[in-house]
């Protein structure tokens, strides 16, 4: 058989096969088949717990819209493991866009990955929806119209906890940030805001990522006679710090203040974490009817309570679904228009997607880790809630007026 003959047979066969497909299936094909959402998430490596949170949220969302779909079309999630590496993330995202034909990317875990993937989205003409990434630059220097951030950013978290501390009795602070972009940015942002509130930062240190013995830093923090220590350490490093500081008896003398107070830490550290305060992007203990119902559905499906990125990713997906519904199409340009200046009732309260930098304006929380006999681990208790206008930076900046 020559090549041309083969092609003819193949094409004829293909046409025949498609005519033989039941009518209801052909109808969905005519509309473009399922709505595909690509998740190039870190599912292995030291940041896997965050990728797994994004995946858990997507699984619950799939279950919730089963049968209904979006625009009557089924929703399909395609997961790719990036291992937390920016170059791999770009490669996997490109595969999702070019081979699988996704129009929406989400679930990217690290800010470094997000910056790399987001930079390619104007060229690919796909929407990048951040539900995890904290780096301020994503909605400032590096912003473009294909990028949307549903989650609270790093500077927004630092703002919420600074507002809380400004009203409190603590005066002297030590700042400990992991030695990379997020840790250093957070410490800088915290220092600016806390100094503006007439408080003092008495010492700063940047331990390397992956530090397993914090004894030297603990000795320094104790010597500084600070009232509180501001910690911008990623999940595992924070767990180790808190555990060791507790063994040295430091947590009683110097209150731990976390950039993000996560369940992941509370589960691993246990009672030694009780009393730590910090900001939370989504505390699952928020008492709204919508959230109570979400927490129950989430716990029924996964057997655990939702952590910050479980909640924020779920909100992102639900909002995106509503926006596509409103646009009446999954055409990327039309979805962007429908999303800009739109509102959404999230789990913890109202969200507003401002047009100028696509940062979702939302409530900010200061929380404390407390013991509650109803739960197997400490839980976040809400100390203060701040309205969106107070905790969202000026458009396309990382600064607050």
């Amino acid at each position, binding site marked *: 058989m020559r090549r041309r003959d083969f092609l003819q047979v193949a094409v004829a066969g293909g046409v025949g096969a498609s005519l033989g497909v039941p009518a209801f299936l052909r109808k969905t094909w005519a509309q473009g088949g399922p709505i595909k959402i690509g998740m190039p998430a870190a599912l292995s490596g030291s940041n*896997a717990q965050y990728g797994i949170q994004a995946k858990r949220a997507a699984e619950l969302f799939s279950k919730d819209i089963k049968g209904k779909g979006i625009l009557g079309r089924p929703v399909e999630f395609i997961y790719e493991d990036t291992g937390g590496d920016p170059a791999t993330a770009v490669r996997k995202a490109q595969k999702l866009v070019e081979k699988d034909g996704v129009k929406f990317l989400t679930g990217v875990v690290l800010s470094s990955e997000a910056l790399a993937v987001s930079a390619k989205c104007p060229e690919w003409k796909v929407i990048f929806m951040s539900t995890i990434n904290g780096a301020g630059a994503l909605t400032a220097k590096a912003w473009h119209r294909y990028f949307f951030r549903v989650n609270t950013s790093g500077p927004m978290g630092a703002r919420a906890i600074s507002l809380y501390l400004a009203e409190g009795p603590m005066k002297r602070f030590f700042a400990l940030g992991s030695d990379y972009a997020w840790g250093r940015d957070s410490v800088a942002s915290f220092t600016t805001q806390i100094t503006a509130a007439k408080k003092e930062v008495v010492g700063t240190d940047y331990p390397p990522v992956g530090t*397993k*013995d914090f004894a*030297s*830093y603990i*000795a320094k923090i104790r010597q500084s006679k600070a009232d509180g220590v501001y910690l911008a350490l990623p999940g595992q490093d924070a767990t180790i710090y808190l555990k060791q500081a507790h063994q040295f008896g430091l947590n009683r003398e110097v209150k731990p203040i976390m950039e993000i107070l996560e369940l992941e830490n509370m589960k*691993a*550290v246990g009672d030694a974490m009780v009393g730590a305060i910090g900001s939370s992007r989504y505390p699952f203990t928020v008492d709204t009817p919508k959230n109570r119902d979400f927490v129950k559905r989430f716990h029924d499906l996964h057997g655990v309570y939702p952590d910050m990125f479980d909640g924020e990713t779920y909100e992102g997906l639900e909002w995106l679904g509503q926006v596509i519904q409103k646009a009446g199409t999954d055409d990327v340009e039309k979805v962007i228009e429908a999303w800009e200046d739109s509102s959404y009732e999230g789990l913890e309260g109202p969200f507003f997607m401002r047009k100028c930098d696509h940062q979702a304006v939302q409530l900010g929380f200061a929380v404390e880790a407390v013991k509650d006999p109803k739960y197997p681990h400490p839980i976040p208790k809400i100390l203060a809630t701040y309205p969106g206008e107070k905790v969202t930076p000026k458009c396309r900046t990382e600064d607050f007026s």
Partner: protein
Amino acid sequence: MANLGEQLLNALTLAGLLFLVSAGLSLVFGILRVVNFAHGVFYMLGAYLGYTTVMLTGWFWPALVIVPPVVGVLGALLESSTLRFIYRRPPIYQLLLTFGLALILEEALRILYGPTAKGIDPPAYLQGAFALGTLLYPRYRLFVIGLGLVVAVAVWLFLRKTRAGLVIRAVAQNSEMADCLGADVARVRTLVFGAACALAGLGGVAAAPMTTAYLGMGIGVIVDAFVVVVIGGLGSIGGSIAGSLIVGAAQTWGAFYLPETAMVIMYAVMGAILIFRPWGLFGEEE
């Protein structure tokens, strides 16, 4: 003064943990001539199995006693089922194999335990701090220093004063000659590999109350352990002890006195030593 004392104890604690890991790494290289990338994973395995044992029994001590032999047996099984067949191949095969084993074991632990770190509490009477003059120091850390010291002395005595130790040293020096003289070299290799894994497992159990058991702890520790072994000299227990003390001191004192250099200071020390003694402090020139 209290401050200097505290920094000294911090260095000794870290050295104690590093010794438990690097001693095995060094022994395996000495006897098997294999650079074992999977060694850190056995440390991690020790920490996770320690967590399981504590959850099942409610006690810390059984973990310290039961886990190391379990990890050791697993290590010995892996050696006799995989590594044994490629000793004669070029080192790149052994590198690929041990690296592959490390990845497989790490992912297996992720599937079994999930991504969240697992914390263990020290036993009740090792919780809290101990007063040494004006200095308050966590009791558990003093225990880790003691454990490192006891194991170091025990391993050294075993290698120097027992017949089994003599055979091991003979195989390390010249395995073919030892074979001719009637030593069962294959068995020695399996036993040494198992014992090395057991030591790493013990290190993992001891580390868990300080650092929790977490994914990635194996990769983190193996880098430091390699630096220890390079400084001390491959295949030498005395070298492991000296190397652990040097790396422990460089890391803790570096972080305290010269925080900006915390990352590089350990490698700077290693570089300096290698310039004068390329075979390490206690290694033998080849």
